[in-house]
C-alpha cells in the first residue's frame, strides 16, 4: 500500500513538473492593419509561435492607427497595456511622452537579442531615432509615389519623365483632358501627408527646433516659401479642374478615381503598388510609376518615411519583455521582411532583403516596386527628410487639411496658412507646457 502511495505521489510530482515546464510566456500584439494585411500578420505570428516553443503570442487587430493608439492608452491607464503595439509614424512623440514604452535600443542591450542595425535602410531607422537613440523598431514603411495610366498617356501623346515637375503634371493633365481620354488629370487623397512629403522634397522642415528633433517644436513653418509654393500649385490644379478631390483622407475614393480611369495620374502610398497593378491588369491597361513631382528649378531632397513601427511597453516581467523583444526583432528578419514586402508593397527594410529580391528578379518582374525603392534610396539624409516630431501631429494634420479645403473654397493661400499656423503653434506650445518641456 505504501508503495502504491509513493508511486502515485511520484507520478503526480512528475506530471505537475511537466505542466510547469510547459507553461508558455504569453504576450499580446495589437496592430492596425486590416484586410489581407491582417491575415498576413496572423500567418507571420503563427510561424513565430511555431518556431519559438516557449512563447505564445496573441494578435489583435484594433482598428485604425488612431483607434489602436487610443485603445493602448486606455489599457495603459487600466494597467493592462499590450506587450507590443503597432503604431503610426506621427504618433512617435506622443508614444515617447506617454512614458510607458521601453526604448528599442535598451531592450536589445538588456535581453541580448541580435539585431543587425547596420543592415537596415537608414531613412527607416532615422525616423524613429530620437536624440541619437533608436526608440522603436521600424516595420511597415512606405512613402508616396506618382502612379500614371500609361495607356491613357500614350493615347494623349505624352510621356511621363522619371522625375516629373509640377509643371509637367499640369501639362500632362491638360493633354489628357483636351485629348478627351480622361475627365481629370490627377488625384490624391485630401490628406496632409502629401503636403508633408512635398515639404521634405523641397528641403523644408515642417516644424522648428530641427523638425522637432532638437527639442519640443513650438512653431510650424507654414509661411515658408516652400509651403506657399505647394499650396498655390494645389490650388491652381483645383481651380483649373485638373485635380479631382476624392474627399478628406479618402484613400479608397482616390484609388477608385484612378482605377476607373476617371483621371490619368494618382499620387498615393507605395503600399498601393500591389492593389493598383492588379486593378490595371483587370482593366486591361498599363500602370507606370514615377517619383513625386517637385516645382521646376527646385532641388529634389527626397521623401519622408511613412507607415508605422513596433513599440514594446515596459511594465511586464522580464520573461515577457524578452519574448516581446524576440517577436519584434523576428518581424523584420530577412525572410519575414521579404514576405511582408511582397505581400503588401511596404518596403523591404534590410539591404540583405533588397539584394535577395534583386537576385531573384523581383524588380524586373515588378518595375513599379523599383521606383519606390529608388526614390527612397536617393533621399538625402537631413532633418527635413527625417520627418517631423510633434506631439500634436494629428492636430497638425486636421488644421492643414482644413486650410487646404479653405484654399480651394476661395480663401487666399497666405491667409489660410497663417490661420492654420496660429492654431497649430498654440497647440505646439500647449503641448510643450503640458510635458514640462
Amino acid at each position, binding site marked *: 500500500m505504501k508503495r502504491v502511495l509513493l508511486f502515485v505521489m511520484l507520478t503526480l510530482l512528475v506530471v505537475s513538473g511537466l505542466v510547469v515546464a510547459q507553461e508558455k510566456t504569453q504576450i499580446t500584439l495589437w496592430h492596425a492593419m486590416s484586410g489581407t494585411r491582417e491575415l498576413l500578420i496572423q500567418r507571420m505570428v503563427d510561424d513565430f509561435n511555431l518556431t519559438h516553443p516557449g512563447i505564445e503570442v496573441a494578435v489583435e487587430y484594433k482598428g485604425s492607427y488612431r483607434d489602436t493608439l487610443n485603445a493602448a492608452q486606455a489599457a495603459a491607464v487600466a494597467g493592462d497595456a499590450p506587450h507590443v503595439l503597432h503604431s503610426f509614424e506621427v504618433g512617435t512623440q506622443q508614444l515617447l*511622452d506617454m512614458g510607458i514604452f521601453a526604448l528599442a535600443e535598451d531592450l536589445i542591450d538588456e535581453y541580448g537579442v541580435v539585431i543587425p542595425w547596420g543592415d537596415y535602410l537608414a531613412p527607416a531607422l532615422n525616423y524613429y531615432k530620437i536624440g541619437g537613440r533608436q526608440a522603436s523598431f521600424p516595420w511597415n514603411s512606405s512613402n508616396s509615389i506618382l502612379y500614371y495610366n500609361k495607356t491613357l498617356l500614350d493615347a494623349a501623346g505624352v510621356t511621363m519623365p522619371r522625375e516629373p515637375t509640377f509643371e509637367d503634371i499640369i501639362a500632362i493633365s491638360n493633354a489628357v483632358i483636351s485629348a478627351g481620354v480622361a475627365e481629370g488629370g490627377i488625384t490624391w487623397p485630401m490628406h496632409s501627408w502629401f503636403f508633408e512629403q512635398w515639404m521634405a522634397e523641397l528641403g523644408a522642415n515642417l516644424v522648428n527646433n530641427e523638425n522637432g528633433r532638437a527639442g519640443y517644436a513650438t512653431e510650424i513653418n507654414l509661411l515658408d516659401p516652400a509651403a506657399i509654393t505647394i499650396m498655390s500649385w494645389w490650388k491652381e490644379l483645383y481651380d483649373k479642374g485638373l485635380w479631382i478631390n476624392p474627399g478628406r483622407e479618402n484613400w479608397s475614393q482616390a484609388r477608385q478615381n484612378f482605377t476607373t480611369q476617371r483621371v490619368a495620374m494618382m499620387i498615393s502610398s507605395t503600399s498601393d503598388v500591389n492593389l493598383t497593378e492588379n486593378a490595371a491588369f483587370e482593366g486591361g491597361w498599363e500602370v507606370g510609376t514615377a517619383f513625386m513631382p517637385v516645382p521646376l528649378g527646385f532641388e529634389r531632397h527626397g521623401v519622408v518615411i511613412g507607415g508605422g513601427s513596433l513599440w514594446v511597453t515596459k511594465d511586464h516581467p522580464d520573461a515577457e519583455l524578452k519574448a516581446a523583444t524576440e517577436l519584434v526583432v523576428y518581424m523584420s528578419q530577412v525572410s519575414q521582411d521579404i514576405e511582408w514586402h511582397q505581400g503588401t508593397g511596404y518596403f523591404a527594410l534590410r539591404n540583405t532583403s533588397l539584394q535577395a529580391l534583386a537576385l531573384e528578379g523581383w524588380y524586373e518582374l515588378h518595375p513599379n516596386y523599383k521606383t519606390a525603392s529608388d526614390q527612397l534610396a536617393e533621399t538625402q539624409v537631413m532633418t527635413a527628410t527625417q520627418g517631423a516630431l510633434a506631439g500634436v501631429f494629428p492636430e497638425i494634420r486636421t488644421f492643414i487639411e482644413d486650410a487646404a479645403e479653405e484654399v480651394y473654397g476661395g480663401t487666399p493661400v497666405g491667409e489660410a496658412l497663417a490661420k492654420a499656423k496660429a492654431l497649430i503653434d498654440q497647440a505646439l506650445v500647449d503641448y510643450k507646457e503640458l510635458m514640462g518641456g
Partner: protein
Amino acid sequence: MESKFPNRFFPLLVLLPTLLVCGMFLYYPVAQSFSWSLLRAAFMGLRTLYVGTQNYVRLFTSPDYLHSMWVSILFAGGIVIFGLAFSLAIALLANRKVRGARIYRTALIWPYALSPAVAGTIWLFLFNPTAGVVNYVLERTIGISPDWVTSQNLAVFLVISAAVWKNLGYNIVFFLAGLQNVPGQVIEAARIDGAGSWRCFWRITLPLLSPTAFFLLIMNMIYAFFGVFGLIDVLTKGGPARATNILIYNLYRDAFQHNKWGMASAQSVILFIMVVGFTLLQFRTTGRKVHYGG
C-alpha cells in the same frame, strides 16, 4: 389609495441597482467631465496640468468653435423642421385605409433600423461622384455631376438630408400612433358641420397630435445635436472647411483624434448645459400650448 412600504429602507434597496448603474455609467463620468474641463490633459489623463477656466475662455473666443455652434443650430433647425414636416406628411398618407397599408408602414420604418455607419455608407454610394446612382441620373438627364461632399453647401444639404431620412422611421411610428388615437367621431362631426379636410387637419388632428409632436421635437433636437455624429464621420468628417463640423463632432475630434481631453471635457460640459437649457425652455414655452386632452 395609498400603498405603504414595510420600512423606510426598502424603497432604497429596490432603487439600489438603478442607482449603482446610473452612478457608474452616468453621474461619475459627468462629474469627471466637470473636473477634467479645468485641466489640460493628454493620454487619457496620464498627463494633466491645471489650467482653471482657460479651456472655456479659449472656446468662447475661438471663431471656429462659435462657427461650430452656428452649424449645430443650422443642423438642428433643418432636421427638426424638415424631419417633422416630412414624417407627418408621410404618416398622414400611411394612415389612410388603403390596400397593403401594413406593408407600407413596415417599409417606412426600415431606415431607422440601420446603423448610422451603414446609412452613411449607403448615402456615400448613392452620391459618389464616380460611381453613384444619383450623379449618373443627373448627368444623363440634365448634364451635371456635382461633387456632393467636397462643396460646402452641398455637403451641408447632403448630411441634413441623410439625417432626416435616417430618422423618418422613428418619427413616423410616433405620428402614426398619435393619428390612430385621434377619435373618428370628432372628425365625423366636423365633416357634418361642413369642415373640409384641410380644416379638419388644422383644427382637430394637429392639436390632438401636439403631445406627440412636442415629444418628437425634443427627441429630434437631441438627435440633431448628438445622433448625427456617425453620419458626419462617414460622409464628410466635419469638412469641407468645417462646414459640417457640429459641436459633437468637434468634441470627438479634440478627444479621440487630437488627444485633448481637458478641452473635450469642457465642450461636453457646454453641450450638457445647452441640452438642459433647451429642454427647460421648451417645457416652459411649448409645454403650455400642448393639448393633452383625452
